[in-house]
């Protein structure tokens, strides 16, 4: 419970700084490194700041040539931190000495809320975690529940999941490319990327009725079949898109400013990244070809031909190249899916889990009963636990569910790649310039909705 101290009333960071100290005092333990940084950051009321400045000046070593480290607070509402990421940075001149990410500003307790919803209601919540990759969230969740149920997903549904998953990867990488360009002053890339992303969102709207946070996949398959004309529009898009990617590359890949700001910046060896649990394009840019679509194919990925782009440099530029290459590979997969899309059901035929077709309710009493039971009580999932990992645009997205045999999950946990990858911020940024910190965080591509959940 936040204290209503009149001195800090309009200074939330000052209040937080105080809480860090008071919490440790209450528990009679020394401050942890993160708490010490939060407490020490210059987030004071004006009076306190004046006092501290005076005290620091008295203590400071003012001999010529002696430099004091500078502690600055970036965020939580900094325009360049992709949402509400707060970075407390210790600087020596312009060089970053230490970075402490402070997260949790977007924490909404989704995992707790899931425990109080039925299994199918929780789908709506999990899509809202990583808001740039809703189809990835929902695939991980439904796959883990399907594992526990032992339900077979029809091939067509799996292919639709691959199709939308890859389109989602494109949309997510486009947002990343646009905003990263913006970070380094490449304004036009942002407009181009968002133009193409908008086309993708139109397609998502066509299929699910929503531009973001789609609730299209269900346990057992997909909510509906693809609408008429959808495949043709996707085909037109895939014909157009390679030229667009060439355009982005023409603007950036050979651009001397882009290269200067990206090459050799933010390098960490693959071993260190792996020890930190970093996955996705960041790990592949350091030379580890770990892609769950290849290593442990799920949802029918073994049927498609594609390469896993890697690089050995491990710097910001390599991460950029890997992501752009991944966009081309995604297009390759999309083309194979729409060319070979199998016919058949889009959702499993299991009336204990799957809603009956709407039109049957008009004449079948049994369908009505099933519908009523599923909507009011939900379906039961056999007791046990399951973990379903998939390759989201940012890395390994896993969903861990525990069931006690009832209609509600006992525990839902998302292993979000943004959360784990963000731990690499400090080792990646140490020794670089402050201006590069912004670019490095951008190439890690964290989505705070997924980090804080």
């Amino acid at each position: 419970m936040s204290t209503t101290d009149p001195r800090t009333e309009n200074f939330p960071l000052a209040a937080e700084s105080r809480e860090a100290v008071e919490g440790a005092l209450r528990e009679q333990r020394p401050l942890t490194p993160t708490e010490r940084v939060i407490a020490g950051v210059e987030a004071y009321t004006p009076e306190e700041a004046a006092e501290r400045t005076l005290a620091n000046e008295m203590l400071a070593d003012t001999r010529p040539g002696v430099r004091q480290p500078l502690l600055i607070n970036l965020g939580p509402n900094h325009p360049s931190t992709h949402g509400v990421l707060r970075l407390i940075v210790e600087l020596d001149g312009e060089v970053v000495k230490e970075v402490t990410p402070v997260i949790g500003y977007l924490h909404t307790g989704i995992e707790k809320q899931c425990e109080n919803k039925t299994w199918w209601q929780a789908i709506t919540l999990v899509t809202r975690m990583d808001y740039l990759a809703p189809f990835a969230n929902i695939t991980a969740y439904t796959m883990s529940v399907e594992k526990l149920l032992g339900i077979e997903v029809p091939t067509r549904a799996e292919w639709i999941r691959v199709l939308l998953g890859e389109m989602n990867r494109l949309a997510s990488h486009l947002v990343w490319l646009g905003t990263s360009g913006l970070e380094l002053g490449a304004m036009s890339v942002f407009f181009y990327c968002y133009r193409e992303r908008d086309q993708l969102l139109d397609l998502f709207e066509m299929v699910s009725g929503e531009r973001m946070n789609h609730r299209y996949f269900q346990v057992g398959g997909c909510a509906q079949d693809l609408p008429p004309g959808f495949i043709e529009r996707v085909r037109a898009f895939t014909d157009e898109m390679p030229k667009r990617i060439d355009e982005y590359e023409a603007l950036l890949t050979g651009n001397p400013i882009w290269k200067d700001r990206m090459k050799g910046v933010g390098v960490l060896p693959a071993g260190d990244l792996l020890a930190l649990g970093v996955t996705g394009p960041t790990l592949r840019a350091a030379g580890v070809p770990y892609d769950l679509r290849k290593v442990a194919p799920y949802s029918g990925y073994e049927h498609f031909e594609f390469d896993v782009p890697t690089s050995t440099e491990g710097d910001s530029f390599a991460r950029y190249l890997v992501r752009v290459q991944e966009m081309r590979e995604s297009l390759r997969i999309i083309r194979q899916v729409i060319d070979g899309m199998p016919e058949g059901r889009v959702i499993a035929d299991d009336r204990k889990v799957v809603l009956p077709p709407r039109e049957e309710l008009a004449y079948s009493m049994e369908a009505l009963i099933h519908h009523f039971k599923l909507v009011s009580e939900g379906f039961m999932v056999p007791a046990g636990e399951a973990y379903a990992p998939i390759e989201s645009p940012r890395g390994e997205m896993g969903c861990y569910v525990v069931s006690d045999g009832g209609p509600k999950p006992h525990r839902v946990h998302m292993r979000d790649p943004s959360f784990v990858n963000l731990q690499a911020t400090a080792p990646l940024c140490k020794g670089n310039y402050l201006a590069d910190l912004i670019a490095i965080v951008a190439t890690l591509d964290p989505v705070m909705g997924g980090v804080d959940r």
Partner: protein
Amino acid sequence: MSDVSAQIEAVTPGAVVAEFTHVGELTVEVRKERIVEACRALRDGPGQFALLSDVTCADFPDEPGRFRMAYHLASIQTGSRVRLRAWAGALEPEIESVTSVWPGANWMEREVYDQFGVRFAGHPDLCRILNPLDWSGHPLRRDYPIGGEEVQFTDAV
């Protein structure tokens, strides 16, 4: 006994309590005092479980051990996976931190501490991560109230 359990037993005999495969996933339950040795054995062993995917916990108020930790390990070469589990204890839940094996466990364990109140011995930076520092209680415990109580932050409106 599976290869994975054999690997753990070879390094720390008596660490494995049980093992079973359910829905195609291998779960190995280990004694909580041995969790670090078991993790290190699997990371360095021939199975090459180099990646710690996830550390999380689930609360079972009726069980004697109450907090069941789950460590998801993966091999980046073969894609094979194993789940280690250990019960952290009901009254003063505490388990050794695996940050010495994988530094990436840092935030995952902080999240478990924040949400469940399980303490991690030897963790370098054990404080709240998702909730505010002065939050009271651990929200993902099953007995955490979810309605009827005063909404936190009402004083901030």
